[in-house]
C-alpha cells in the first residue's frame, strides 16, 4: 500500500466512524426516551462520542495535513475531563438543572470559539469565486451568533437557578430584544455583502457580533421566571445543537451534522412537551405572562383550620391508607429523608403509604422521583397522578407536603385560572387532607388554592423538615 492509499484508508475509516457515531447518537437518543433503556442509551451515545473524538485525532486531515498540536489537544481533553467529571459527580442532585445549563453553555461557547477562529481562514479562492455570500460564511456566522446566545443565556439561567441572579422584568424588554436581533441580522447581512479579498479584513465585525450576541443572550433569559428555567434550558439546548450542526456544515462532518440537528429538533420537541405538561405555550413561557395573571376569587375564600402535630400523628397512625403528595416545598426543605422515615414508621404500624407523583411537581420534570430516590424510597411506593386519582375516595388521609399548584382544584373548577386544564392530583376526593407548608404562601403559579379552605382540610404550618421531624417523634411516642 502506498502513501496515497494509506491516506485514503484513513479518511475512509474516519468517515465510517462518523457514520457509526451518528447511528449511536440516534440510537442513544431513542433509548433515552424509554425508562428501561435510558441508561444504556446514554452510554451508547457516549461510546459514539469517544469513537468520533479518537478517530478525528488519529485520521483527520486538512489539505493533506494531519491533526497537529496533539499534546496540547490531549492536555485540553484531560483538563476538561477532570473538571467536568468532578463537577458532575460532586454537585447535589437538586442542582442538576443548573448543571445541565452550565455544560450546555460550554458547548455553545465552544461553537462560538470555533466560528471566531475559522472566520479569518475562509478560503480566499471561495471568496474570489462567490464573494462573501456563500454557505461557508453563513454557517460560520450562524454558528457564532447561536453559540454565543446559547452560552450567554445558559450562564444567566445557571445563575438564576443557583439563586444569585433575580428576574428582571421591564416593560420595554421585548422591544429592546427585537431591536438587538435586528441589529445582528443587519450585521450578518453587511458582512456577507462586503466585497473583500480575504475574510480577515472583516474580523472586527465578528467581535462586534459576538458582543451583541452576548447582550442578546443575557437579555433574552433575564425576564423569564426562575421556575421556567427548565424549559428555557431545553430551548437553549436545542440552540447549541443547531450551532454544533453549523460546524458540521463547515467541516462537511457527518457526526457533527447529525448530532447537532438531532439535538436541535429533539430539543425543540422536548421544550414543547415540557410546556404542554404545564399546560402552557412556549411563547407564554418566553414572554413570561405567568405569576400575576389569574383573578382567583380570594375574597370568598373563607377560613382555614389548623391541626396540631400530635393530632396529625394520631390521625395518621390509625389510618389504613395514606397518600403523600410531595411538592416543591419538600425539595426546598430537603425533607425527603425524614419524610421517608415517617412513611417507614407508619408502614410498620400497618398503614399503607403511597406517594402520589405529579409530573410537574417541583421545578424540573421528574424532580420528585429524583428527590425520593435519593432518600431510598422504594419505587413501588410511587404512583403517578392518573393512577392515584381513582383511588383517592378510599384514602383515609392525604398529606400534602410543600405542594400547592399540583393539588389546586382551580385547574378543574375555574376557567379563568391560569392553570385551568392542567391535570392535577384530586386531593379533595380524599377523606381527610393535611397540608404542610410554612404559611399561606402561594405556589409557582401565584394563585390562591381553595383546597386549603376545604372543610376536610387541616393545615400544619412550619418548615417541612421541622414539622416532619416533630411528627416522626410524635408517631414514635404513640
Amino acid at each position, binding site marked *: 500500500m502506498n502513501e496515497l492509499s494509506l491516506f485514503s484508508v484513513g479518511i475512509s475509516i474516519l468517515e465510517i466512524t462518523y457514520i457509526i457515531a451518528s447511528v449511536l447518537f440516534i440510537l442513544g437518543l431513542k433509548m433515552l426516551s424509554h425508562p428501561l433503556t*435510558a*441508561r444504556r442509551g446514554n452510554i451508547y451515545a457516549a461510546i459514539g462520542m469517544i469513537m468520533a473524538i479518537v478517530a478525528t485525532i488519529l485520521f483527520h486531515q486538512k489539505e493533506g495535513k494531519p491533526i497537529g498540536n496533539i499534546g496540547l489537544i490531549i492536555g485540553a481533553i484531560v483538563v476538561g475531563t477532570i473538571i467536568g467529571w468532578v463537577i458532575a459527580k460532586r454537585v447535589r442532585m437538586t442542582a442538576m438543572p443548573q448543571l445541565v445549563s452550565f455544560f450546555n453553555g460550554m458547548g455553545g461557547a465552544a461553537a462560538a470559539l470555533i466560528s471566531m*477562529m475559522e472566520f479569518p481562514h475562509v478560503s480566499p479562492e471561495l471568496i474570489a469565486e462567490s464573494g462573501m455570500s456563500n454557505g461557508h460564511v453563513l454557517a460560520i456566522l450562524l454558528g457564532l451568533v447561536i453559540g454565543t446566545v446559547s452560552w450567554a443565556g445558559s450562564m444567566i439561567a445557571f445563575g438564576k437557578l443557583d439563586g444569585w441572579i433575580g428576574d428582571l422584568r421591564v416593560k420595554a424588554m421585548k422591544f429592546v430584544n427585537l431591536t438587538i436581533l435586528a441589529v445582528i441580522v443587519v450585521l450578518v447581512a453587511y458582512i456577507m455583502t462586503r466585497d473583500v479579498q480575504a475574510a480577515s479584513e472583516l474580523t472586527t465585525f465578528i467581535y462586534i457580533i459576538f458582543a451583541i450576541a452576548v447582550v442578546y443572550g443575557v437579555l433574552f433569559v433575564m425576564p423569564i421566571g426562575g421556575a421556567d428555567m427548565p424549559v428555557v434550558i431545553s430551548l437553549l439546548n436545542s440552540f447549541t445543537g443547531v450551532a454544533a450542526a453549523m460546524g458540521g456544515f463547515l467541516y462537511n462532518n457527518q457526526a457533527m451534522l447529525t448530532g447537532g440537528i438531532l439535538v436541535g429538533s429533539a430539543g425543540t420537541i422536548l421544550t414543547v412537551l415540557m410546556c404542554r405538561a404545564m399546560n402552557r405555550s412556549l411563547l407564554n413561557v418566553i414572554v413570561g405572562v405567568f405569576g400575576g395573571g389569574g383573578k382567583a376569587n380570594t375574597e370568598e375564600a373563607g377560613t382555614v383550620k389548623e391541626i396540631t402535630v400530635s393530632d396529625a400523628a394520631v390521625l395518621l397512625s390509625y389510618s389504613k391508607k395514606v397518600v403523600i403528595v410531595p411538592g416543591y416545598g419538600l425539595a426546598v426543605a430537603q425533607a425527603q429523608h425524614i419524610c421517608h422515615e415517617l412513611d417507614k414508621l407508619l408502614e410498620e404500624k400497618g398503614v399503607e403509604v403511597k406517594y402520589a407523583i405529579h409530573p410537574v411537581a417541583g421545578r424540573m420534570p421528574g424532580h420528585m422521583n429524583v428527590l425520593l430516590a435519593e432518600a431510598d424510597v422504594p419505587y413501588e411506593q410511587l404512583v403517578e397522578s392518573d393512577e392515584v386519582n381513582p383511588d383517592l375516595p378510599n384514602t383515609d388521609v392525604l398529606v400534602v407536603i410543600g405542594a400547592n399548584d399540583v393539588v389546586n382544584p382551580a385547574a378543574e373548577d375555574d376557567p379563568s385560572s391560569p392553570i385551568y386544564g392542567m391535570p392535577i392530583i384530586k386531593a379533595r376526593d380524599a377523606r381527610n387532607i393535611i397540608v404542610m407548608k410554612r404559611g399561606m404562601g402561594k405556589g409557582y403559579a401565584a394563585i390562591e388554592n381553595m383546597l386549603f379552605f376545604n372543610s376536610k382540610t387541616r393545615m400544619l404550618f412550619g418548615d417541612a423538615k421541622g414539622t416532619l421531624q416533630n411528627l416522626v417523634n410524635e408517631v414514635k411516642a404513640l
Partner: protein
Amino acid sequence: MESILQFLLENKGAIFMVILSIFLGIEVISHVPAILHTPLMSGANAIHGVVIIGAIIVMGHAETTGAMILGFLAVVLGTLNVVGGFVVTDRMLEMFKKKK
C-alpha cells in the same frame, strides 16, 4: 434566485440529511414520558458536545499562539460539555434505576 437554486443543488445531500434528521429527532422523542424529560434534556445536551470535534480540528491546525490559546479553550469547553453531560445524565438515571 439562480444562485439560491445553485446553492440548494450543490448541498442537496446535506439539506436532505438535515430534513431526515429533523424528522427522526421529532419521531424519536415524541413518546417520552414526563419523568424522563430532565435526563433526556441532559443526554441531548451531552450529544451536542460533538462540537468538540470542530474544536479539535481547529486546534489541530492552529499555528499562532493566540489561535492555540483559543483552540485549547475550545477543546476544554467542548470536553466539559461532553464529559459533564454524559456523567450527569448517568447520575440522574442511576437514581431512577435505584428504585428496585
